[in-house]
């Protein structure tokens, strides 16, 4: 029996008849190159088995939240006639999401997840046209020059908009992260989304490329309010806050 690549592949994929397999088994015992080909194939397949890992924890939640969001009325279609087909509605919803930055999509997905666990749903607030000075001044620090200064890396004290706050820069997974803390709650930036709990209030917002996440404690409650700013998906910011032991 001659060595035959296709026959080896058929053998390995269990596609030979019983009789053919018996003949090939005999051939394998006598043929070093075919034997080696079969052994290498099996070793490679065995190695690949190690890569059959599950999806990361939390990914199913993220997917479910983003689909839930996509299934709702898209932002730009609010108030439009509601007699489209289900397929049209889905395509429109997907377009609405696709046209938003990925960070916003993830933020929205994170919001849905948080809203489920919280006592309040999303509240779209009526805000002034620009961010409060406390927020704007801290956001402005997210530049390489300022953030990498020794003073900010060590932590600096400021008074912005009549509010005393401490600001410090960190590097988290290679990304500059600015953290502001205060004994008073921070006013929320424009177009932020709020989710409230019984003892604290969390909000998220985006500002150009930057994402913000804040947790406010009531004045006099003893805890500190904080918010952080970073060029990363807003959904990751709560994890970063926990990692930095801010919350």
């Amino acid at each position, binding site marked *: 029996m001659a060595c035959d690549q296709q026959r080896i592949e*058929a053998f390995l994929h269990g596609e030979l008849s019983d009789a053919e397999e018996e003949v090939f088994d005999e051939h394998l015992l006598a043929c070093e190159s075919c034997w080696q080909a079969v052994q290498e194939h099996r070793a*490679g397949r065995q190695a690949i088995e190690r*890569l059959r890992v599950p999806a990361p924890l939390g990914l199913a939640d993220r997917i*479910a939240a*983003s*689909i839930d969001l996509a299934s709702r009325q898209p932002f730009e279609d609010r108030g439009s006639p509601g007699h489209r087909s289900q*397929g049209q509605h889905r395509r429109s919803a997907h377009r609405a999401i696709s046209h938003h930055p990925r960070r916003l999509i993830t933020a929205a997905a994170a919001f849905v997840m948080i809203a*489920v666990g919280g006592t309040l749903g999303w509240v779209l607030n009526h805000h002034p046209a620009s961010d409060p000075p406390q927020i704007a001044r801290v956001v402005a620090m997210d530049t390489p020059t300022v953030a990498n200064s020794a003073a900010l890396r060590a932590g600096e004290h400021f008074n912005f908009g009549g509010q005393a706050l401490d600001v410090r820069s960190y*590097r988290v997974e290679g990304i500059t992260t600015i953290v502001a803390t205060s004994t008073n709650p921070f006013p929320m930036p424009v177009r932020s989304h709020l989710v409230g709990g019984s003892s604290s209030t969390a909000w998220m917002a985006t500002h150009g490329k930057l994402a913000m996440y804040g947790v406010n404690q009531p004045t006099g409650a003893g805890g500190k309010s904080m918010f952080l700013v970073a060029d990363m998906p807003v959904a990751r910011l709560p994890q970063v806050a926990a*990692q930095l032991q801010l919350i």
Partner: protein
Amino acid sequence: MRPIGLDRADGSAKAFLEATLPHLDIIYRVAFHTAHDHHRAEDLVQETYLRAYAAFAGHHGTSTRAWLVTICLNLARSESRRRSRRVVEAPLPDDDIAPAANPPVTDLVIAGLERERVTRALAQLPEEQRLAIVLMDLAGQTAAEVAGQLGCSRNTVLSRVHRGHRRLAGILAREDVDHGL
């Protein structure tokens, strides 16, 4: 555990999630071994599900798993074309804090290192062999399904898988020799 959000979803979204989430592990594996990065893979999976949801009304009859894999592959190809035209930023070093890690259990660490080694070896294969292996071995698809997705014959798929397995074994064996194992 039921994903948060599944119970909130309305009828069509819920039906979609119930039909597609059981394949999440498979889609993630395909995404990871085409994107080569966990964060990009997660984004790719999310985009796959959003695209699939938009087209769910027109999905009839064919395997949901194969349908999702095809969407994921097409998105990965288009993302790869976009990235090839883009300047890639070099990551900055983490100089203050490292990502949080749980205390390692020896077995888990060894298994993780071994997975990384196989992942690196897999990434060294020619793309056609790597894709065939990912789609057959890690996505659990038939050679016929993979042939449809890659636009080649079933025999070609089997041949690519076979050559890929042998090459992978060779790469790993050479590493073992290099490390005196």
